[in-house]
Every structure is written in structure tokens, then in C-alpha cells.
């Protein structure tokens, strides 16, 4: 174990080789659960990213917004990309998503902004179903009817895609059976 802060040493395999950021730069972008890089030149703004995604997907720029990974506030179109360009840029449709979570025979639903994480949904669901905090670590989310546990860092909007609704199941996280402790 180490108490090192990963944030202070965030070099990826390729990023480690880059002393000066190249121009154009590769900007990590995620839209509807698809990751891609978009090349941008110094001075370009958030509107440039929105334009590329909108044209590629046949959408209107005004129906989309961008939030950088870890931020809570959307970026204005005129915001320069170079400030914080390394972080992933999440592109979302504007309308919120009504999330329904099913657990045993009950369901709860609530509206979430598209850039809220599944972790926020899970935290809310654990409270909504009256599950004790000491049990919180036992649970995961899956798409309704699926067994595949979802990465909690992902955004509600990426799971919902074009839809305004998202149905999830609250399930016990599976653990492998065996080893010396089992």
C-alpha cells in the first residue's frame, strides 16, 4: 500500500513521452458510451467538439452540452479547450433522464442530469430502498434484466443513449467462491 496521490503522477503510457503537448492535440471525448479522440488545435473552443459530434451524429449543437470528467458544471461553447484539455470531455443530450431502479419487488424512480454518475444513482437507490449504510458496499447496478455489473464512474446519459428513461436493477455484487477465506 502507498499513500501516493495518483493525481500528481498521472502519466499514461504515451503521455509520459510528451514533454510539450502536440498541436493538434488528441482530446478524449465520450458520447453515448462511445470513446473517441478528437484532434483540436490551440485556440479552438468547446463549440468545435460539439460541432464535430453534432455533424457526425446528425444532431443540433444546441441540443448537446459538454462536461469535463470530474466537473459538475457544463462548459460554455466559447470556453477554450486547452484549459484542462487532458481530461475526458463528456458530450450529452440536454434533456434529463428518469432513472428507475428495481430491487426485489419494489421500484423507485428519480430524474438525474445526464452527467451524473451511476455512483450517484447507487447512493440514492441505497437510501431510497432503506438499505443500511453498513451494507452499502454489497450492492451494484445492472441494466434491468442483465447480470453485467455497470462501472459506477459512467454517466447516466451514456447508459441512456438517446432515451430519456433508464431502467436499472439493484443487485448484490457477486463474489467468487473459494480461496482460503471462503
Amino acid at each position: 500500500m502507498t499513500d501516493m496521490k495518483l493525481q500528481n503522477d498521472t502519466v499514461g503510457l504515451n503521455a509520459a513521452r510528451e514533454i510539450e503537448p502536440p498541436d493538434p492535440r488528441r482530446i478524449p471525448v465520450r458520447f453515448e458510451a462511445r470513446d473517441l479522440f478528437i484532434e483540436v488545435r490551440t485556440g479552438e473552443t468547446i463549440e468545435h467538439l460539439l460541432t464535430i459530434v453534432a455533424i457526425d451524429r446528425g444532431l443540433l449543437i444546441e441540443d448537446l452540452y459538454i462536461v469535463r470528467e470530474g466537473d459538475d458544471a457544463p462548459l460554455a461553447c466559447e470556453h477554450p479547450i486547452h484549459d484542462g484539455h487532458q481530461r475526458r470531455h463528456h458530450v450529452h443530450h440536454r434533456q434529463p433522464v428518469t432513472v428507475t431502479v428495481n430491487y426485489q419487488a419494489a421500484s423507485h424512480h428519480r430524474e438525474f442530469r445526464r452527467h451524473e454518475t451511476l455512483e450517484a444513482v447507487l447512493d440514492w437507490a441505497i437510501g431510497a430502498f432503506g438499505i443500511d449504510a453498513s451494507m452499502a458496499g454489497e450492492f451494484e447496478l445492472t441494466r434491468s434484466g442483465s447480470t453485467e455489473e455497470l462501472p459506477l464512474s459512467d454517466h447516466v446519459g451514456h447508459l441512456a443513449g438517446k432515451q430519456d428513461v433508464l431502467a436499472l436493477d439493484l443487485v448484490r455484487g457477486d463474489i467468487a467462491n473459494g480461496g482460503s477465506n471462503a
Partner: protein
Amino acid sequence: MLDPAETLVRADLDDPGFIAGVLAGRWRIHAFVFPRLDFYIAAIEPDGQTVAYGFRGDVTNFPATNPMVRIWDLEANTPLSAPLRPKGNQRVAITFQQWGDDTVYRPWDRKTGPHNNNAANLPHLAWRSDRHLQFIFEDLHGILNLNARAHRIRAAA
């Protein structure tokens, strides 16, 4: 000429989703000398402290063969001793237990998958050749941060 497996590993490490995890401070590559992949994953301890745990992976014949991952003291270059392993609920304890092969006890792992039929019993957590390394990093990060959830929910109550 690179081994095809090394080429595919490098492509996974350069994937925007994987890099987003690096930039967000969720994980970091310590060293990659094929087939050995050493990395750190950020974790929250039961007392709320933020730390990072080291891992040593073997990615021979990736992705056709499951990666094999052990929790590792990357400074001492030894398996992490039991008292220093992550603490928390049963999911944490089982994942990082010391057992025969002493790999991470998750169904996607090369040794854990066939052990007690774990991969067959839990196919949604098993390795498949269409999965990417990010699946493993997300899984380990999720397990190592289970302690944070109880802290958040108690604080919000």
C-alpha cells in the same frame, strides 16, 4: 517486431477510456515490460483515507488468455503481505485474500477463473477475448472503493 499481444495491450492502454481513468487519478501504469504490467489502483480505506495499491499483471497471449493479476508491493518487489492488504467488507476480503495461487480472487483472473468453476458460474465477471484491460481496472477500482460508499451514505444521512 512487437508480439501481437503486446500491441493489443498497448492499444488498450492508449484507449481514451483507459486514459480518462489515469487522468482522473483512478489508476496509473507503473511499468510495462511485456508480458509484465505493473500498476497502481486508487483506493479508499475503511477510515476514509485515500491510498493506492500496487499490482503485477501478466498479459501473455492477451486477450485470448486471461490476464493474471497479483496484489504486489512494487517497491519491495514481493507479493503484498497479508496485514497490508485492503480491508473492508467480505467482497474486499475475498478479492485480496491469500490463497493457493495468490492472484486477485476475481473470476476474470487466469487462476481464479477455473478455480471452483468461478468463471463458468459468474460469466458476467469472467474474462472474454472481446474484453479490454479497462474492464479489469474498473473492477479492481470498484472493489477498492467500496469503503467510500458507506462513508458517503452515512455523511449524507
